[in-house]
């Protein structure tokens, strides 16, 4: 449950660490979910579906990058507009391809992979070790992201772009190129996150299947203080709220269905309210970088 949130937030960490505030994350996830769905539905292969999701999300990401990095457009407004376009395009294309029918088209999903032995640990075993590929990918990506950002030269330069692009440029770092690359990575991860929704959690596509998860991802990045480990913890927390809501519903606990659905959103609000320190925010986040 936390996997799509985690994947999306890891992608966003790359973007924000390079100085790009990307509210288009939601749109990227959505388009990725749609792309992944279509490809996997047509080809019957979840892996090709994943690829399709990534391509779709990266496409949006590159448009964002072009508008914000090369044309210096305001990142927030651009991101939000792209969300609209992505939603519209996805819905439009879905209707075009599948029409409006009572039986929704199904995608080919990922099957669960059991990690031998570990999966037999009572209680925790199945939960942690009997998930689909994408979930394991998400787990693995946490240390990989951390490593790439803090223990490589590349990561250092990327972070410099987000902290002080002018200084970075002076040191010979191609800031624009790094930002494009960061958006590429963001797209890849957002696409994977979207793919999780249509290829794993559910096997259908519905309008607004992302339901604000992209924005929760943004909150996770803040909550996790722009670090992968923090994001992982936050994602688990939010994912738990998501899951709790569903579980309670399934078990017929007499709480209103609507109130339960509210849980992750309210949690995000509380999390943001509780966050006071902005000391860890990449200094140049959100500011267009002009070299004139």
């Amino acid at each position, binding site marked *: 449950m936390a996997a799509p949130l985690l994947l999306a937030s890891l992608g966003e960490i790359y973007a924000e660490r390079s100085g790009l505030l990307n509210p288009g994350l939601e749109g990227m996830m959505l388009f990725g979910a749609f792309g992944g769905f279509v490809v996997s539905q047509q080809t019957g292969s979840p892996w090709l579906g994943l690829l399709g999701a990534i391509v779709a999300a990266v496409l949006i990401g590159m448009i964002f990058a072009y508008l914000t990095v*090369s044309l210096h457009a305001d990142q927030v407004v651009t991101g*939000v*507009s792209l969300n*609209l376009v992505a939603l519209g395009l996805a819905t439009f294309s879905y209707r075009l391809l599948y029409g409006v029918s009572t039986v929704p088209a199904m995608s080919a999903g990922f099957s669960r992979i059991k990690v031998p032995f570990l999966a037999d640990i009572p209680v925790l075993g199945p939960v942690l070790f009997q998930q689909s590929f994408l979930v394991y990918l998400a787990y693995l990506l946490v240390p990989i992201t951390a490593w790439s950002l803090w223990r490589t030269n590349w990561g250092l330069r990327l972070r410099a772009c987000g902290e002080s692009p002018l200084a970075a440029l002076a040191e010979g770092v191609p800031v624009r190129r790094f930002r494009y690359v960061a958006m590429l990575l963001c797209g890849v991860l957002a696409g994977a996150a979207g793919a999780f929704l249509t290829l794993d959690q559910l096997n259908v596509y519905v309008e607004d299947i992302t339901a*604000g998860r992209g924005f929760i991802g943004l*909150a996770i990045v*803040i909550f996790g203080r722009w670090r992968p480990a923090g994001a992982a913890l936050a994602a688990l927390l939010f994912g738990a709220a998501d899951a709790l809501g569903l579980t309670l519903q399934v078990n017929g606990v007499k709480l209103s269905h609507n*109130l339960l659905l509210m849980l992750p959103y309210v949690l995000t609000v509380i999390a*943001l309210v509780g966050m006071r320190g902005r000391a860890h925010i990449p200094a140049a986040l959100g500011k267009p970088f002009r070299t004139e």
Partner: protein
Amino acid sequence: MNNSKRLLRLATGPVVAVAAAFAIGAILIAIAGVDPLVAYQALFLGAFGNKTALAETLIKAAPLTLAGLGIMFAFRTNTFNMGAEGQLYFGALATTVVALAFPGLPRVFLVPVLILAAALGGGLWAAIPAYLKATRGSSEIILTIMLNYVAVLFVGFLLQGPLQAPGTNTPVSPFIPANAQAPIIWGGTRLHASILLAVLVAIGAYVLLWHTPIGLKLRAVGDTPGTAKAVGIPVTRMVVLSMAISGALAGLAGMGEITGVHGRLLSGFSPGYGNTAIAVALVGKLNPVGVVLSGIFFAALRTGADTMQRWVAVPASLSYVLQGMVVLFVLAGEFMRDTTGLAARIKGAFGLGK
């Protein structure tokens, strides 16, 4: 530069953007196997072709314009209020509750009370994230979006509980008394007074922003924040004020929908008006006249798209694509001005000069 010339200049961007968006839309329509000209004809006729169509367009234009004007206020102080949808819902909720609570009140008292309720409902919902941003620097973008979902779900909860109309299983409230319902202003159609309210608010917004000291301060906070702070303008207070106004107007939009269109509160009464209003405000270049025109444009898109779907089977969601593209192109156009001078060249070609 006098006012009309300035407005014309502002308009170039959106006009070009609309043209570009429609061009790409034509390609999409062609892919769908339909003649774009026929499809666009359906679109246009569906929005403006006859009395009913025009009325329907204006009906949709009212909430879009009202909420759009609200968002214009917030954006003018660089506060990105994404929460119009939620504020709309709260305004609608407040309206319904008050209307149901005072069934006997004569219209002359009821109407101002309802307006006040709606404005307070929406305004308060916006004030929460505004306050949080002002005191803790939290991102209003995320907060307002989250609160949107909370608002919609909360209303849904109420509609299946305390606010549910007796004897039904659907999430609807009882009908509000006739006194509370907005009058129809065009005989034979559904067009109700909300559109008049929208125009009034637009005029009011113009006066407020350009002819009062507070308006000047609001604009200064957004246009030249450094200077504003330096001359002692209370930025925080202006931000909260602009958000409150923003929410209040969105609340009014919600009120319009309940009193004019549905007559009661129902779950999902707003087909994303609040979110579309963001696009309306942007394409309207954050200018009251622009927002009104933009509101009509977006409303026309929605209304026309339904007709287009019925007549030529092009999915109505094309309107979302067109919407998004128009916004994107407006944005791109705004910034291309800096780097390529393309906008200036186009303007030159149309004889508008620089």
